[in-house]
């Protein structure tokens, strides 16, 4: 029974497999698993098939992450789907051959949630792992540290982690690009509020940009004013509008009290 899956597995283990090939192999094996009631672990699933099924799904997840830079719009949803399929296997206590895969996939998933700004899910997921051992784990520790830095605002630490090869494995590198632009936007938003003006030369290092030309391009994209080697931020139009309905609110409240008092007395 397992003999049909072995050759496919061997092919999938090759990390440089082109994505379309991997996709067709994966769908073939998933159909096979489905026919044998092994796509989700149930009581009818033959127990010998469980580790194989898990490994196929894990490899599927990793293959789709690797394909993310080229096939982003297909591969990322596919990755999320694989993660969701893999979870019941972990809950059922199935262990696959690649022992590192579990924390790797969970770590990647955490990083994905982080880049998409889904912090609530990130923390729910984290709670399920248990923070104790997770921080020491090579794959899980990375997204956890990044989240902490992002939250407190140590963007330079994030930048260092991304640049200086702290990435635990090549798959994690996929998200570096997204993370970089994410922190750049964060910094830009903070800077608008924090600085009255910025010299172009130092903005380069502030925003982790390559050249002054990039700075000017970036400034224009955000609608900043560049003048005499300085960047000025346009005043944000925070009008007096909320102030106007103060009296309305007060009237409404007082009427509310009056009505309530009427019912009490």
């Amino acid at each position: 029974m397992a003999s049909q899956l072995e050759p496919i597995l061997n092919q999938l283990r090759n990390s440089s497999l082109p994505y379309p090939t991997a996709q067709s192999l994966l769908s073939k094996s998933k159909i096979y698993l489905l026919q044998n009631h092994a796509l989700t672990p149930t009581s009818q699933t033959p127990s010998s098939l469980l580790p194989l099924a898990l490994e196929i799904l894990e490899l599927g997840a990793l293959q789709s992450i690797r394909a993310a830079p080229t096939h982003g719009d297909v591969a990322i949803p596919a990755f999320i789907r694989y993660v969701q399929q893999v979870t019941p296997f972990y809950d059922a206590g199935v262990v696959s051959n690649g022992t590192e895969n579990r924390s790797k996939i969970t770590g990647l998933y955490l990083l994905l949630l982080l880049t998409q700004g889904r912090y609530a899910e990130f923390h729910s997921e984290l709670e399920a792992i248990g923070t104790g051992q997770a921080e020491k784990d090579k794959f899980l520790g990375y997204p956890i540290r990044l989240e902490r830095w992002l939250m407190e605002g140590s963007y330079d630490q994030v930048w260092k982690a991304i640049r200086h090869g702290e990435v635990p494995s090549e798959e994690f590198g996929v998200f570096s690009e997204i993370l970089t632009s994410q922190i750049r936007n964060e910094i830009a938003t903070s800077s608008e509020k924090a600085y009255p003006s910025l010299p172009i030369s130092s903005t380069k290092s502030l925003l982790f940009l390559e050249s002054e030309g990039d700075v000017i391009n970036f400034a224009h994209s955000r609608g900043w004013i560049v003048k005499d080697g300085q960047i000025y931020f346009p005043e944000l139009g925070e009008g007096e509008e909320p102030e106007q309905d103060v009296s309305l609110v007060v009237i409404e409240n007082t009427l509310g009290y009056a009505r309530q008092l009427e019912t009490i007395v």
Partner: protein
Amino acid sequence: MPGKTPDKEPVENGGYRGGKDIEMKDKDEASSLKHKGKKGDDEKMTVVVPPSKKQSSQPPPNDVDGDVAMDEADQADDGELKVDPVVQTINDIKGNFALLDRAVALFDARFSLRALRSISSIRKRLTPDILAQVIAETYQSGSSRAHIASQLLAAVGKGDVQLRGQSAEMEVDGEPKAPAKNGASKKESKEVLPEADIFLAILVQVYLYDSKKFREGAEFSRFLCDHIHSLNRRTLDSLSAKVYFYYSLFFEQLSPLPHTSQSPLVSIRPTLLAALRTAVLRKDIDIQSSVIVILLRNYLATSHISQADLLVSHTQFPENAANNQVARFLYYLGRIRAIQLRYTEAHEHLTGATRKAPSSACALGFSQTATKLLLVVELLMGDIPERAVFRQPTMEQALLPYFQLVGAVRVGDLDAFENIIAEHGDVFRRDDTYSLILRLRQNVIKTGIRMMSLSYSRISLRDICIRLHLGSEESAEYIVAKAIRDGVIEATLDREHGFMRSKEIGDVYATREPGEAFHERIQACLALHDESVKAMRFPMNQHRLELKNAQEAREREREMVKEIQEGDLDDDDLGGDFEGM
């Protein structure tokens, strides 16, 4: 001397609570598992009877051993007129059958609730012998319920005890030993109510739980749940809710313990969900509320946060559920929201939970746990909890690590914060607040920055970096910029010279804030008023009586008017009459 025998209900309760209280404090000091402590509290929440004054006059019967000792003492001076505690217990149990009878006859759940409340007093005195005797005397061997009786007996480990019918002749011969037996057997010649079955079954569950026979208890509860599911009686609702409660409690104790997804807890989810579905269809509030709470607890125990969230969003917690269930539900909901970073909601729910928690000492553990979580959530929101919270004598000890934590966050001292986490890490982990507390780091930093912005009109980034023990000056710059954006401080940064300049702080009283705070408080008071009105019980048909009175008064008035017109009455009499009304 007569005071020595256990009196009826309230005294027992007092003693019982006293014992439990001490035990709980022990649990807090000795580092036992938090889950254990909390479970105990969950049960205890059902007991809300004011302590009796008689309590001091007699030693509280603490446990089964105490009972046995008293038993011997009784036999020693047999001459005195006294009720044997065993017989007393049996009578107590049987007294509850009468309550259940009335509950069924009058269709009033209050009587079943009263029966359930008495469990806590009976609990201490339960022995397999007592249970077996009650069961044997309740059921007739030939009746349709005999199989239930045998199940009950087997669960207590007294499978060989014979049911009543078989030894009927002997009973006639030997004339009952206890006077109550006579009355009981007469009354129970009719068929035993299913309510009584379940009540006895709950007693068996309680006994098994107290004697730590978790595996047997789990087996028995499984059978019981199947049985309950087949019954459809509204008068059973509150009893069944209790059965499910113990059902899940047993499975929590089975190894492997929670925090692993292979825990046996996972296996009872289908049963509970089925029970919930049925309860919703039958509009059965008791089971709905308690099963939702049990399920939430179940999901949280295995850290399935998203499932718990889904459950909350797909079910509607019954509005008029029992207060204790609401408190628990709010606590679990607050937990979920806190994990999801929805602090404002979490704060609202947890405040509700701590307020709704019974104020008596019997649910101390629950209030402690809820308060701990509430404190952490308040800190995460950037608020500093009031000092008075830590001064309550019942909380002081348990909240000590949190008190230190609040101190560190308030001052913005990152070093002290790290030290506290290192020192009390185990406590926080046991309380399941560890991961939330780790998130506090950014708050500590923000507070630190805020303190500095308040104290200095201009400070260099290097100094900020040194004071807050940050990694580098660049980090400090980004962090300060973020703090400015988040509205933590009013300041600007100067990149060329590397310092932060604070802006003048405006007068708070010139803003809308005081008004808003005032409004919030008024709202809270009004809501409290509304809720207390809703919570009052009004006697049935009372308004009709008043209407009748009013009508009578009106008639009298009419008569009087007539009499005045006829000139029969003086003005004096008239005045007197009106005053009488």
